[in-house]
Structure formats: structure tokens, C-alpha cells
């Protein structure tokens, strides 16, 4: 299982090299998005005020404080992705996001968009906000400030990771593969516990 140290923006070639189970760290730009950010974008038709093309987007509602004109980090953590499945194919297809970062994975619609447009899902270690916050060097911009803590954030990050490639651009879905593997084990587990189906 390979370890990749990348810098944003991500190209199709870079994404092509990533396979499920690989570990990724990266430097550069990271956008923060959440449920409300995407409801605002997709359901209420607001165009993002900057280009997201080639960039990674993380599912987060960060704790920040505003000092003068600048935003400072307090705590940046990651939330469960499945709630945002509905928006993800379009985020990849229309806006060119190359990596969605979150926990728990996404579903088939996103997997297809990842194959079609060369993108990946990178799984973060849930609960590890202390580490993520350390790796955020700066909060460069907060767009749509009125939506905070579910606005659109532009972070600069260094050595962001470890992230596990959970879904790749070759059609593989690690969460589903692991789940299927467990499903095959269930009859034996039931038997061992004396469970009658």
C-alpha cells in the first residue's frame, strides 16, 4: 500500500495513481464545506465565489474566531459524509473538486462521478480534530460568512493526513468491500454464538 505526498491542485494523473487503501498526505489548499454550504450552493443556486477546480473539499464545521478582519482557527474536525451524498456528484462533475475528505464514505452516485471525472474519496480518522487543527496553517478565506460554521472555507494546510483512499477513480469502494467481506463471515459468527436464523 503506497504512501503519497501530494501538493494541490490535484491533476487527473495524480488521481489516477491513487488506489483504495493507499495513504495520502498533502500540502496546499483545502476547502471546507458542509450540509448548509451545499444546500446554499445547489438547492438555492449560489455560485461559489472562487474556483474549486482541482482542489480537495473536506466535510467540516470549524470552530473559528474572528480577530479584526482575520479568522483564526480554534478547532477543525471532520463530520460524517453520507449526509452529503446528494451533492457530491455535482461537486465533482460541475465544480471539478478532485478529492472529497470525510468519514464513513459516500455512495454509488459519487463513486460513478469519481470514475467519470477522475476524483477520489479520502477517509480521515474521525475524532482526530486536534491533529487536523495542527495541520491547518491558516484560514485564508471565509466565503458566505453568514453561513458560518457551515460557510465555504479556504484553508492552507501542511502535511494534511494521514488520509486513506476510501473510494478511487478506478471504481473501487473500500468501505463496501470491507462490509461485503464481513457479510460473508456472518453465518460463521452466528453459528459460533449459537444464533439460529
Amino acid at each position: 500500500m503506497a504512501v503519497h505526498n501530494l501538493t494541490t491542485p490535484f491533476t487527473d494523473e495524480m488521481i489516477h495513481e491513487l488506489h483504495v487503501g493507499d495513504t495520502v498526505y498533502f500540502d496546499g489548499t483545502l476547502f471546507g464545506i458542509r450540509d448548509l454550504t451545499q444546500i446554499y450552493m445547489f438547492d438555492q443556486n449560489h455560485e461559489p465565489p472562487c474556483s474549486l477546480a482541482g482542489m480537495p473539499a473536506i466535510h467540516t464545521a470549524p470552530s473559528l474566531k474572528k480577530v479584526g478582519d482575520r479568522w483564526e482557527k480554534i478547532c477543525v474536525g471532520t463530520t460524517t459524509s453520507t449526509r452529503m451524498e446528494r451533492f457530491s456528484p455535482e461537486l465533482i462533475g460541475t465544480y471539478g473538486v478532485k478529492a472529497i475528505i470525510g468519514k464513513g464514505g459516500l455512495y454509488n452516485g459519487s463513486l460513478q462521478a469519481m470514475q467519470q471525472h477522475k476524483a477520489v474519496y479520502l477517509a480521515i480518522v474521525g475524532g482526530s480534530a486536534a491533529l487536523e487543527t495542527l495541520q491547518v496553517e491558516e484560514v485564508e478565506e471565509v466565503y458566505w460568512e453568514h453561513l458560518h460554521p457551515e460557510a465555504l472555507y479556504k484553508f492552507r494546510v501542511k502535511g494534511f493526513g494521514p488520509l486513506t483512499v476510501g473510494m478511487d477513480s478506478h471504481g473501487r469502494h473500500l468501505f463496501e468491500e470491507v462490509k461485503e467481506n464481513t457479510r460473508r463471515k456472518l453465518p460463521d459468527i452466528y453459528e459460533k454464538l449459537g444464533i439460529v436464523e
Partner: protein
Amino acid sequence: MTEFDYQLVEEAAKETYIRALCDLPTDVREALKRAYDKETNPTAREIFKAIFRTIEVADQGKTLICQDTGLPIYMLKIGSKFPWNGYEIKTRLTTGAKRATQEFPFRGSSTHPLTRINPQTSVGEGLPVIHYDFVEDSDCLEILMVPKGSGSENMSKMKMFYPADGVSSLKKFVIDTVFETGANPCPPGIIGIGIGGTADLVMKLAKEAIVRPVGERHHDPQIAAMEEELEEAINSMDRGPMGLGGKITTLAVHIETAYTHITQNPIAINTQCWPARRSRARIYPDGRIEYGY
């Protein structure tokens, strides 16, 4: 006896909330290390390393381990000789939780269930959750603070089985729940199980199960054996840390039980994530406060 200073309860309520969020209990740290030693999957081992690094960063900076500061739960043990005024304790716990949120400061997660308006206090109608029990021959008030995040709490399940379904249906319910919830409760954590009681009591038992220190077994050998059996079964599922595959899917299975109705066979599951956060304070009538896990 001099009058008890209820300000101590407020301070302890605030302090335990902050401590719980930043400082992981020793038994959980040790359980994670033991789990790492047993883990062979390379992806899973990377995840464990990130977990250890996170704990280290939080220790060094006294920062939040996880951004989800949860809903505050206070579990009280009230000594029989403790001079207590329940209403005053409730008020002080509420103020302490609010002060922790606003003075640290961290994100408040409590919200109105219909309007979804968040007061940024971590409290509100019905919050904090306060459970209490009474302890014989003690002059102390023990406060166990549990900040419960939603990633794991959202995976809670309960079911009222029939007596005819037997114990085997309870075991199947546990296995199927772990299978279905997969990556969502940030495994490997603690799987808390309540068996018996009423619909409300069974979930409270499951909550009590997640706060038992990892490594302690139920005092009843029959229940302890069931804990071990389920733990072994779950750790043979290969779901692994964060549901990405690996040997370790849970750090521990804990079961708490209560007598139930002759026609009932209830079970509840309350999962706890790997940052199994909790903090304890013991307050004595002379004003001493002892902090621990």
C-alpha cells in the same frame, strides 16, 4: 456542619466538561495501545498511529481531541451523608456546562429539536442530561461527566424482543447493529449494551455500560462471559478502525443489566467512539474536589 458551597458543583461541572474533551482516560489510552499491538492490517495501523498523534497533540496544547463537543451528560452518585439540595445541584450543573462552552470557548452543539436554533450554550430545555443514583455510607457527591458526540450517539439502537426470542436474538441484534453501523461511530470504541428493565431504563443501562473503564468486567460471571464472547465475535468481523478493514473493530463490549417484566426481553445498544471521553469529580462537604477519570 457548615453550609455546603454549591459553587463547587458549578466549578466541577465546568471543569469536568473541559477535562473530558481534552484529556482521554488512561484506561482508554491503554486499550488503544493494546489494540494497536494486536492489529496487523497496514491501513489500520496507520489509523492507530494518527489516533496516538491526536492524543499527543491534545495533551500538549490542552486542545479538544474531537470537534464534536457533544451533549453534556452528568451521572451523579450522591452519598447518603452528603448534604444535598437537588434543585441547586441541577442549576449548578447547567450553569457549569454553559460556562465551559462559553469560557473555553468551544462549539455548543445543543439545538431546538424543531427550529434547529443553537443557543451556543450546550444546554437548553431538558439539558444537560442528569442521571443520579444514591450510594450508601458516603459523604461525597461524585459527578461523572460524559460529553456524547453524535457520530456514535446516532448509531444507538433499542428493541423490545419477546421472552420467546431468547438470549440468541439479543446476540444477533448486537452483531447486526455493529455490521450495519460500520464506520459511522468512529470505531474502535466501546459497545455499550443494556439488557432488561423498561424501554427507558434499558437505554440508560447501555449508557452506563459505555462509561465503565475499559478492562473491567461485569461482576456477574455469566454477564462477563457474554461480554467476552461478543467482543471476540465482533473482533472477528474484520471491519477494523474507521470501518476501513482490520482486526480491531471494538476496544470492549460492556453489558449492564436490570430485572425486566415477565413478558419483556429488551436490549439497547449505545456505541462510544474511540475518543471515549469522560471525566470524574468527587466533591466532599469540606470543599475538597478530587478529579479523575
